[in-house]
C-alpha cells in the first residue's frame, strides 16, 4: 500500500500561505505599479465624539477596503443598540461586520451576546443589532471613551470624491439604544446622538 508523506502536504500548505501573503492587495497597497483600483478612506463627521454619542470612526483601510468603527462614547447603562447604516450601492459594497472586538463581549460568553447584520433585505441598508442578552445574567455596560461596538467593512467600487453624497454612511431610523429594562413591547431607551461620516476613494 502506498503511504503518502505528510511532510509533502505540510510543505505545500506553507507554500500556499506564503503565496497568499505575497499577493498584492486588490486595488492598491504600497506598490502602485500593481494597483488599478481606488484607495479608500473614511472621514468621520465627528472625529472626537462627545459623551452620549454613537459615532462612525475610521478603522484601518487597505486599498479599496475600508473599515468603519461603530463606537459608543460616554453612555452609562448600555445594554445594546439596534440601528441601520445607509450607503450608496453604486459606490460602496458592504463586505461584512466584525464583532470580535466589541466591548459588549468583555467578561461575558458568546451565549450572552447577540450580533446580527443584514444587508440583503434592503439594498443600501445594513440592519445591525449588537446587544447583550438577559440582564439578570449580564448587566449593562457603563461606556466611557470611544469604544468599538462593531466594525463594518466596505469596499469602494469606484472613485469617490471627498464629501460626495455617494460616499456617505449615515445612521437611519428606526434606531435605538437599549438600557436593559423592559418597556413593553420594547426595551427601555437611552437617548444618544448619532454621527456618521463619508468614504472617499481615489
Amino acid at each position, binding site marked *: 500500500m502506498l503511504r503518502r508523506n505528510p511532510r509533502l502536504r505540510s510543505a505545500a500548505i506553507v507554500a500556499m500561505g506564503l503565496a497568499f501573503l505575497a499577493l498584492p492587495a486588490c486595488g492598491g497597497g504600497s506598490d502602485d505599479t500593481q494597483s488599478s483600483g481606488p484607495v479608500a478612506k473614511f472621514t468621520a463627521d465627528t472625529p472626537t465624539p462627545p459623551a452620549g454619542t454613537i459615532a462612525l470612526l475610521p478603522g484601518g483601510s487597505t486599498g479599496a477596503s475600508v473599515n468603519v468603527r461603530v463606537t459608543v462614547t460616554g453612555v452609562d447603562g448600555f445594554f445594546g443598540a439596534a440601528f441601520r447604516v445607509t450607503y450608496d450601492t453604486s459606490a460602496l459594497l458592504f463586505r461584512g461586520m466584525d464583532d470580535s472586538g466589541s466591548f459588549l463581549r468583555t467578561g461575558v460568553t458568546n451565549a450572552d451576546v447577540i450580533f446580527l447584520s*443584514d444587508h440583503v*433585505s434592503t439594498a443600501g441598508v445594513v440592519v445591525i443589532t449588537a446587544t447583550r442578552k438577559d440582564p439578570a445574567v449580564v448587566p449593562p455596560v457603563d461606556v466611557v471613551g470611544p469604544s468599538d461596538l462593531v466594525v463594518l467593512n466596505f469596499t469602494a467600487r469606484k472613485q469617490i470624491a471627498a464629501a460626495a453624497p455617494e460616499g456617505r454612511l449615515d445612521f437611519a431610523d428606526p434606531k435605538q439604544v437599549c438600557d436593559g429594562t423592559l418597556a413593553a413591547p420594547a426595551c427601555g431607551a437611552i437617548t444618544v446622538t448619532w454621527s456618521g461620516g463619508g468614504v472617499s476613494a481615489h
Partner: protein
Amino acid sequence: MMRKPLAAAVAALLVASFDPAGAATTYFVATTGTDVGSCGTSASPCRTIQVAIDKTAAGDSVLVRAGTYHECIVVVPGSGAGGIDVQTEPFSNNGTVGGVLLDAAGVCDAATGAGPVVIVYDSSSFKGFAIKNGGDSGVWGLGAVTIASNQITDNETASVGGGIYLAMGGNVSDSAKKAQITSNTIRDNVSGLDGAGIFVDAAASGVESHVEITGNTLSTNAAGDGSVGVFGAGLTVFTDTASADDVSTVVITKNVLDGNTAAADATGASLAYGGGIFAATGGATGAGTETITIGGTGVGNTLRNNVAEGYGGGISANLQPASGGTHAIELIDNGLSANTASFGGGGAHLFATALDLDVATSATIEARANAFSGNHAQGAADDPAATGGGGLYAESYAYRTPAGVVVMDVSGNTFEGNDAESFGGGASLLALANDDPFADGATLPADATIRFANNLLASNKALGTTVPASGGGAHVLAIAVGDQAAATIDQSFLTVIANQTDAGAGGLDWDATSAPDSLGGAGHVSIALSNSIVQGNEGFGVGGAIQPSGTVQTSIRYTDAFGNVAGDYEGQLGAAPGSNGNISIDAELDALHVPPLCSPTIDMGDPAIDPANEPLPNGDRVNLGHLANSVGATRTFPDVTGDGLVDGIDVMAIAVAFAQSTGDPRYFAAGDRDFNGQIDGADLAFVTAFYALSCP
C-alpha cells in the same frame, strides 16, 4: 405418484444444473433446444418452455433464452405443489425485458382456442417476457404470484383482464404471501368487459388476500364491447371479504396510466366508470376488512389522458361496505391530468354508499394531496346523467345509516384548470341522506357527510356548450329526505380563486334539497364554509340555487371573499364582511396561490381552532386558505414591537426579557412568539429568522 427409475433420476441429476444445497434446479430453454427427456441443462436446453416447466419441482427455476416462442404455458411445478420461478435469461443477466417473446398467435389467440398466454399459479413468479396475442388475456395470475417486468401487449379477452387477470380468493395458500404485479408495460390490450390492462379479483375467504401493484405502465388499453358499461380500462380492482374475519388489501403505487378508455354500452344506458383505475370494495359481500390504497406520499400514480364514458376519467373509487365491515379507500398524492369523463368526475370519481349499516361499521373514503389539473367532465347541465366535477365528482349516500359510519374526506388537493360542462369545474360534491329509502315508513337515522378541506380550486371552468353551467370552483349539493336524515357538506380552509362560470357562483355554487319522507318530516341540510379565501371568481364568490330555511342551514365564517365579479356572496346567504369573522380584502396571493408573509389572511381564522398544525411562529391563530391549519401554512411575521419591522429593536426586546416566564416582571406576551409562557431561544430564533424583513 409414479416413481421414476433410478437410472433416469441419475441422468436427470447429470443433465440438470445442480444446486449443491440440493434445494433448487434451474432448467434452460432455447429456440435451438430439443425437447428430449434429458433436456433442460444449459448445454442442452429444452425447445419449449412448458416442457422445461413440467420438469420442475417447488423452488426450481426456468431460464428462457432470447427468441420467439409460440406457446401458451402454465407456470406451476411439474410436481404440482409450491411455486417456481420462470424468467428470461436476458432479464436474469442484466434486466433486459422483452428479449423473449411469447406469441400466442395460432396457439391460443382469439381464433385458436382463446386462452391466456400464461397462467401463473400461486407462489410462482414470471418475469422479463414479452407476451402478445392472447385470446383470453395475456397473463392469468391465480393466487399470490409475482408478475414482474414483462411487456404485455395486444392481448384480448371477451371477459375481464385483457393484459393481466389476477384472481386471489381460493387460489391463495398462505395469508403471509402477497401477489405482486410490478414494473410491467401493459399496452394496447382489449377486454369486452372490465380491466383491459389489469383486472384484480382480490377476494378473501378464509385466507387473507394481499395485492401490490407497483411501477407498471398501462397505456392505451380499451375496455368495453358495447354490451355493458365497464368498470375500469387500465386497472380494475375489486376487493371482497366473505366474513368479518377476512382481510383483503390492495396497494397501487407508482404506476402510469395513460390513454386508457372505458366504454359505455352501445346505447349509453349503462355507463362506464374509471378510465384509468376502477377500485371497489365489497365486490360481493364486504363483511370483513378491506383496504385499497391508491398512491401514497411520494409514491402516487400518474393518470393522464384516460377516458371513461361515464364517471371517473382517471379514477373511480367505490366504497361498498356491508354492515360491521371495515372498509377504506385512499387516494393519496396522485397526479391526474387531462382525463375525461362523459358525465362526471373528469379526474376522479368517489362513491360511497351505505344502507342499513350499524355503528360497528367503519367506512372511509379519502382523497388527499392529489393534483387534479386539466381534466374534463362532459355532459350538459340539462342531461340527467351529468353530475359535473371537472377534477372530481364525489358522492356519498347514506340510507338508514347513522352518523360516523361513513366518512368521505377530500382534503389537501389541488384542482387547477379543470372544466365541466354542467356543474363544478373543479369539483362537484353530493351528499344524500335518506331515513326512509323504500318510502315505506320504516325509518332510521341517516347521515351523509362530506368534508372538503384544505383544497385549492384555481382557474377551473364551469362553462356549458348548450346550456349554462355553474360552480366554476365547486358545485355543492346536499339532499336530505326525512326528519331523521342529515346531509352535511363542510367546506373549510379552501382557496377558491379565478374560477369561471356561466351562471350562479363562479367560486362555490351551493344547492340543497330538504324533502319529506313517507311519514312527512323533512330532512336537515347543512352547508358550511369557513376559514377560506374566495377571490376573483366570475359570478358570485359563493351563491347558487340554495335557499336557507328552517331545514336548510348555511354558514359562512372566518372567510375572506374579495373581488368576485357579481359579488362576494349571493344575497340569500346573508353573509357579509364584518360578521362571523368574515373579511373582504385582497389576500395578495402569489403566483402559486400562497399567502405571502404580509397577507391579511394570516392569523385571521377561527380563534377556536388550535393552530398547532401550523409551523411556528403561528401567531397562536390559524390562517385562511388551503394551506392554513397545515404544515404548509405561511408563518406569522414575528413583529414584537408592532411597527411593521422585524429588526434589532425586536431582538433587544426579546434580549431584555430573555428567560422570563409568565408572571415574571420582564415577561411580556408579544415577545413570547410560541406562546409557551417563556421568552427563550425559540422566540429569539423566530425573530432572527425574519430579521430585517418588513411588513408594512
